[in-house]
């Protein structure tokens, strides 16, 4: 009983020990904050990585692709049974995107993905990231009139609302040029006429060769071209669109700061613009095919790797252009089959089952899960978290030595009391229990306060970041670097438990030695101690 009473009394009266426990508090709070933020980042990153990737992908490297996707799909469904939520076929290709901006031509490397717009949404969250609200419901590769993410001022105008005036303007520019060319031609003909008349008058009938071949052919150029165009009914950009393409937002825009230092996206491409995409056909050797597409939407998965390389087009268009459709059966080949599992299903087990179904030695297909695709990155983050935890626990260990020193001081200070207690009949074990119990109490109080502080910090982390920004004048999270408008956090109860228990354990360990010393104290010497 006296142990409990004295522990509690010491806790209340020895403020120096509470000061030593502050280091434990800080350590615990830091561990909780760091772990929560790291977990938040990891989860958000995984979500984004997973965002437009399906759970499993069955892929071939062959140029021609998988010729009978239907057969594969049936085998997959038969093997995985009702764990499958959705299956879709896609064609992915390395490609080159070319567009005009400010009169200059720009080229960029992209991953061109041909998707089935009806089933693709069933395997990935892709549609969730589209800018146009209607496309989020059901993706269509037709350009909308307007309504592309109205909250993004920089993107407006977009859609037909943007395409029509642009087309009219271009047409007007062409008209002006044509009128100019026609006037030139007229003048030239008049000039010719005059020369002819003059020659007739002079009697020299033969015209000069230069005027006949060189000048005429040059001046006749524009008129020839215009006549040709008129014959094959020109593409009217004002009312027509090319095949739709959905680009990653990073392809069509850059994020930067405007003159007021506000973070803005600057769009050099908008829904309604036309782009040229060059990709290999399915022949051997492959040749580049050049196709024009009209941007019908952007997507923003906030995973910059995806946002700056992936472009989605209708699968039929790709199959048709590349010559992947079997002329006899009319079945289009695909390069990969994507599978989404039902929630909570074991990803690796499903992958292994498919690998077993399609052994790499027999089939030309490879089965991967999205984790495999992003494996190195996930492993790196995991490693980072582990190392950070080890380092921070070392800080708590340092705090442990602080407690050790303080405890030794307290034991020395309490020498006489230890002697008194022994003279009253307290056993050595009882004395040790007092100081051990004191260590447990201090550890619990320290880590308890640390726990509360850490949780409060995590809860208000964005406000705290704002305050730090205000004080230092520097942004903690630069939104041009991170696609986060706020710091993501994720509190895992298991982490809280082991951080708290771990630091209590360190406090107890640190109090073991002083307790043993106190217990071993000789009562007579302790009583004599001044």
């Amino acid at each position, binding site marked *: *009983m*006296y142990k*409990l*009473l*004295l522990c509690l*009394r*010491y806790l209340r*009266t020895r403020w120096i020990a509470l000061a030593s426990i502050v280091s434990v508090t800080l350590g615990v709070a830091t561990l909780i904050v760091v772990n929560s933020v790291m977990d938040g980042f990891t989860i958000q990153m995984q979500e984004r990585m997973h965002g437009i990737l399906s759970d499993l992908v069955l892929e071939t490297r062959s140029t021609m692709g998988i010729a009978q996707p239907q057969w594969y799909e049936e085998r997959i469904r038969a093997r995985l049974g009702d764990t499958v939520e959705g299956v879709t076929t896609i064609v992915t290709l390395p490609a080159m995107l070319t567009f005009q901006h400010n009169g200059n031509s720009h080229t960029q490397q992209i991953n061109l993905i041909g998707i089935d717009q009806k089933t693709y949404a069933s395997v990935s969250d892709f549609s969730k990231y589209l800018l146009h609200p209607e496309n989020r419901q059901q993706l269509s590769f037709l350009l909308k009139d307007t309504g592309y993410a109205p909250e993004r001022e920089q993107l407006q105008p977009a859609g037909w609302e943007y395409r029509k005036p642009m087309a009219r303007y271009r047409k007007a520019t062409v008209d002006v040029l044509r009128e100019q060319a026609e006037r030139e031609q007229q003048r030239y003909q008049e000039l010719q006429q005059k020369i002819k008349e003059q020659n007739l008058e002079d009697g020299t009938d033969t015209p000069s060769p230069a005027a006949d071949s060189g000048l005429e052919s040059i001046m006749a150029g524009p008129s020839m071209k215009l006549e040709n165009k008129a014959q094959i009914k020109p593409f009217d950009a004002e009312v027509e669109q090319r095949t739709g393409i959905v680009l990653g937002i990073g392809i069509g825009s850059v994020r930067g700061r405007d003159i007021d230092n506000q973070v803005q996206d600057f769009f050099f491409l908008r829904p309604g613009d036309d782009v040229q995409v060059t990709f290999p056909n399915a022949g051997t050797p492959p040749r580049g095919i050049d196709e024009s597409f009209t941007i019908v939407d952007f997507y923003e998965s906030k995973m910059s790797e995806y946002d700056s390389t992936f472009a989605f087009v209708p699968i039929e268009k790709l199959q048709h252009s590349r010559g992947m459709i079997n002329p006899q059966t009319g079945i289009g080949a695909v390069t990969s089959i994507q599978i989404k599992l039902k929630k909570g299903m074991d990803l690796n087990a499903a992958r292994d089952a498919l690998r077993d179904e399609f052994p790499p030695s027999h089939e030309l297909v490879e089965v991967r899960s999205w984790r495999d695709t992003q494996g190195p990155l996930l492993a790196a983050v995991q490693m980072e978290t582990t190392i950070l935890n080890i380092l921070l626990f070392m800080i708590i260990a340092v705090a442990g030595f602080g407690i050790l020193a303080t405890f030794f001081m307290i034991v020395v200070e309490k020498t*006489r*009391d230890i*002697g*008194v*207690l*022994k*003279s*009253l*009949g*307290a*056993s*050595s074990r*009882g004395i040790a229990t007092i100081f051990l119990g004191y260590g447990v109490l201090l550890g619990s109080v320290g880590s308890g306060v640390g726990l509360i502080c850490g949780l409060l910090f995590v809860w208000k982390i964005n406000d705290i970041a704002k305050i730090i920004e205000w004080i230092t004048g520097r942004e903690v999270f630069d939104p041009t670097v991170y696609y986060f408008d706020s710091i993501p956090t994720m509190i895992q109860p298991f982490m809280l438990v082991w951080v708290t228990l771990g630091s209590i354990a360190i406090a107890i360990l640190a109090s073991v030695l002083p307790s043993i010393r106190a217990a071993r104290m*000789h*009562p*007579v010497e302790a*009583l004599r101690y001044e």
Partner: protein
Amino acid sequence: MSNSTTTIKPHFDLAKRAASYRVVHPEDPAPAPTLRVHPDSARDLIYACGLTKSYRRHKTSVPVLKGVDFAAERGKITAIIGQSGSGKSTLLHLLGTLDRPDSGEIHFAGQRIDSLPVRQRDRFRNEQLGMIFQFYHLLPELTVLENVLAPAMISKGVFSYWRNLRPIQASAKKWIDLVGLGHRMNHRPCELSGGEMQRTAIARALINDPSILLADEPTGNLDQETGASILRLLQSLNRDHGLTIVMVTHDESVAQSCDSIVRLTGGKVERLPTLGIAANSGTN
């Protein structure tokens, strides 16, 4: 070299002390040979024979007790008297089982206690013994009541303590009232005067109803009047409760009021009749 000087020093001190003793009391006879005590467990509550004890300091052992025989009669007050360094506190510590003698035996109520295992000696101290000290040795974090309760808490676990809280507290209050501190129950030791602290210590020593009280210079740190009142308190406890008291003191007048006196000189004992001291009491 420095080592040897430090080892010699204690011997030198002792020699000097012995010399000064002779100078101050030239009329004293040479130390009489130690009287052999013939212990009688019916008469003597605690007795010891042939106790030797030496302390090790820097590899040299300094003998403090050199074969001491001692007995304290039941229900009597026995004073241990002697100069500083004569070993009287050491003897008291040995009697209180706070330390073990190098040789010799200590018996309490007919049972040998110096050779008991540590646990049993702890229990013996807790249940049979009360101790008070010159510097009171109260626990500064606890109130008067809690200080008095401490031995009861030590003897009982948390649950049995809570179960018996009422009787224990009642007896603590009884003792506190008895020593005259009923109005100071919830004060901290630092708020008390020296006499009050010693009274608290006495109440604490008595809470477990011990049969013997060991007092190490209980009045040594108090003024004459307070010391006298403490002494009266101890005498009344002896008289009313039959408490056996062994008291270490260097105050001859205090010793004089006791039932018997044991004089320690240079680690040996010399039993004098109470009245025999009277001649020397004035010189102290």
